């Protein structure tokens, strides 16, 4: 009897291993362990390349959270050159538009600089820079050129951030009669609705340009209200139950008082101005909490009948970041043939993780600042920064929209 059981188990494992490796071989581009993919989904000219440069600039030196982005030497050099080009106010040079052949996946190691000189790598961040024309093609406009890497990233990204071009939004709100802009907005939002990801946010780029006819800066509340008045598509999108709560993040890659827009639409840098991007870090800080909450929702949605701790979801469907967060919070995970069980209810996971992050570090032996600690730091910073944004009265939107509300 036991020999029969052993043979059956061995055959089942062999078949499982065969299937797993076939799955791994069929995609051709498996994500690296602990990799998080952030896709800024925007049309041409919306500011994706500038956001990349600004993001790298923001995390260059660590800052209060001690988080920095590392990349290979060639990429580092190119990004530094990009930064130099932008911040040099002795000329008006800015990065060229991204060509159709210039799709590029930038990979960063997110490293945490701890106390006493300790450092540890929390995760890898992938940021795809691409010609916005490819997004237009997928949305049904443009001339139909397609890029395989863009399509692949659109499907596999952990979080998608829709980029609304602030300059075009301004034209829609101030100049009026911009049917083309409204249609473009609808097409972009439609792409987000079609995406499989549940983690979606909106960024309004070029926020420094959003001023009314008298030159007064718009508040976020004003922009959102007016967009809902002028675009039924935008109004419907905010109420789509699929996404839960969508953040709308105003971002300025140049910051205030760095660039002037000339009558012909070109830009001129103000001599001697300081380049201070605004809110450029927020899409990054939204990523990890969203991945975690998305995976919790996935587990709960597939809970075994009557259970609050067991799920039929297989462990490999969870992001590595989620697994890291569970381990960091000492939430054990027991795998069975049909899913796994946790040691706490799904509804308690976030609270447990956050309690763990808030607790003073316990003295374990030996005290080593490792990947789990680094991930904890990044998570802590993510919650802190995203909540600070949510609570900031200058970014408040009235009334807040709940998914599914008419």
């Amino acid at each position, binding site marked *: 009897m036991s020999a029969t059981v052993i043979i059956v188990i061995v055959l089942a494992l062999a078949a499982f291993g065969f299937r797993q490796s076939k799955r791994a071989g069929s995609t051709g581009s498996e994500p690296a362990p602990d990799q998080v993919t952030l896709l800024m989904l925007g*049309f*041409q000219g919306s500011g994706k390349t500038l956001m990349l440069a600004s993001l790298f600039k923001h995390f260059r030196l660590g800052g209060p959270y001690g988080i920095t982005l590392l990349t290979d030497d060639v990429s580092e050099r190119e990004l530094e050159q990009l930064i130099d080009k932008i911040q040099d106010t002795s000329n008006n040079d800015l990065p060229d*538009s991204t060509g159709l052949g210039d*799709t590029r996946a930038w990979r960063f190691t997110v490293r945490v600089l701890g106390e006493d000189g300790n450092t540890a790598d929390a995760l890898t961040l992938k940021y795809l820079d691409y010609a916005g024309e490819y997004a237009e093609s997928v949305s049904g406009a*443009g001339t*139909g050129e397609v890029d*395989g890497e863009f399509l692949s990233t659109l499907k596999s990204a952990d979080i998608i951030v829709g980029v609304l071009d602030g300059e075009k939004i301004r034209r829609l709100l101030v100049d009026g009669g911009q049917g083309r802009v409204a249609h473009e907005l609808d097409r972009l939002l439609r792409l987000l609705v079609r995406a499989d990801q549940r983690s979606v946010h909106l960024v309004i780029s070029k926020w420094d340009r959003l001023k009314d006819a008298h030159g007064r800066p718009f508040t976020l509340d004003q922009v959102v209200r007016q967009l809902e008045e002028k675009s039924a598509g935008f109004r419907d999108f905010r109420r789509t139950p699929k996404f839960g709560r969508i953040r709308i993040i105003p971002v300025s890659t140049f910051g205030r008082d760095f660039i002037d827009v000339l009558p012909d639409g*070109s830009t001129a840098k103000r001599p001697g101005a300081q380049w201070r991007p605004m809110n450029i870090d927020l899409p990054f800080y939204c990523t990890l909490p969203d991945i975690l909450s998305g995976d919790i929702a996935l587990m709960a949605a597939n809970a075994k009948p009557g259970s609050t701790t067991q799920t039929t979801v297989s462990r490999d469907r969870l992001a590595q970041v989620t697994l890291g967060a569970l381990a960091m919070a000492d939430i054990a995970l027991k795998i069975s043939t049909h899913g796994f069980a946790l040691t706490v209810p799904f509804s308690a996971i976030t609270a447990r993780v956050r309690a763990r992050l808030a607790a003073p570090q316990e003295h374990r032996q030996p005290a080593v600042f490792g990947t789990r600690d680094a991930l904890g730091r990044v998570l802590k910073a993510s919650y802190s920064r995203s909540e600070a944004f949510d609570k900031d009265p200058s970014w408040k939107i009235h009334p807040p929209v709940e998914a599914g509300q008419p």
Partner: protein
Amino acid sequence: MTVSAPGDALAAPDRPHAWPFLIGRARHAGHRVLVVPDFMADRAAVSALAAAARTADLPDGTARLRELRGLANGPICLVYRSPTARAGDYRLPGDGRLLDETGRNIRLAEGLVLRLPASAVEAIGIDRADLERVHATVAPAYRLFWEREDGFTRQTSRGLELSTPVGRGGEPIRLQRDAPWVAKSDSGMPVHPRPRQPETVAGYGPGRQESGRDQWPETQRPETQWPEMTVARPRRKRLLFAAGAAVAAVIVLTVVLVGHSRAPVTPHALPDAALTGFCDAVNQGSAVHAYGFLSAAYRQQMSKAVFNAQFFPAAGKDESKVACTFTAPAMSGNAADSTIFVVSPGHSRSTWSAHLTEESGTWYIGSMARNAGGR
């Protein structure tokens, strides 16, 4: 519409031919393929051309050479430059650089497509006059695109005859080779051609009557067939992986079964694991197994009978419905504390404060105290 080079003529079969192409954007209209070789007018080939022609910052007298692999058209090479568009170069009004609506420079991809592998292109060599001829061929198309923007319709190009080394008096262009661009199949795997290349630089005459189709006249069909495309499948790798998994499974099972016959408890390196094992045993009604998670010292204090009475009050009855859960243990050095909940329908719920201790790397429940207030 098909663009033609000045002085085009049917070529002798031994002279290489190349097809001009152009990729660019206008002030408002975004990047697109503006001029494409007539045999590449299908959507897949246009996308491949667009994706392969990445912007290259090159010194004067240099062009980028890039081979495209995995296309139905066979091996293709691009030889191109990425000039910054200037009004004067395209006979457009004004002076200086052309800018898009956000004030950015406009970079174009302008060059030649050859139906040859990269090594053959390097052997042929490209002359500055060839690239100037390309520019003269595609410039009207760009001017039209600038004027019409989204109203512009993509144009196809016919093959033009390259100058031969003997006939050249001009300046040769240095070719800077880029990594090959490889087409990917729907599964994301590269499409690998079999490693067969034409042995000679074939003279591919124009001879084609319809754009977008490879219409070789019979007399000019090269003897070498285009390589067949196969998709790489790591079958052997999968078999090895499965075999490895099977062997590992046999080893693990042997260790577990042999170990199980000697001791009722598998050592647990973390308190979570010990608590998980304990609760699993309780949930499965295995009193003997659950008892094994107590430390030796605690087992001396609590007999099996007492333990069973506490945790298995419905022994012999419906034990399988007992539900044991616990809170994540709070660590303190080599000890940990947790709360264990035991519930069985129809029976009282009991709550236990458990204190775990580590002994030689293995965690056990060192003591349990029942909390007041159970139902």
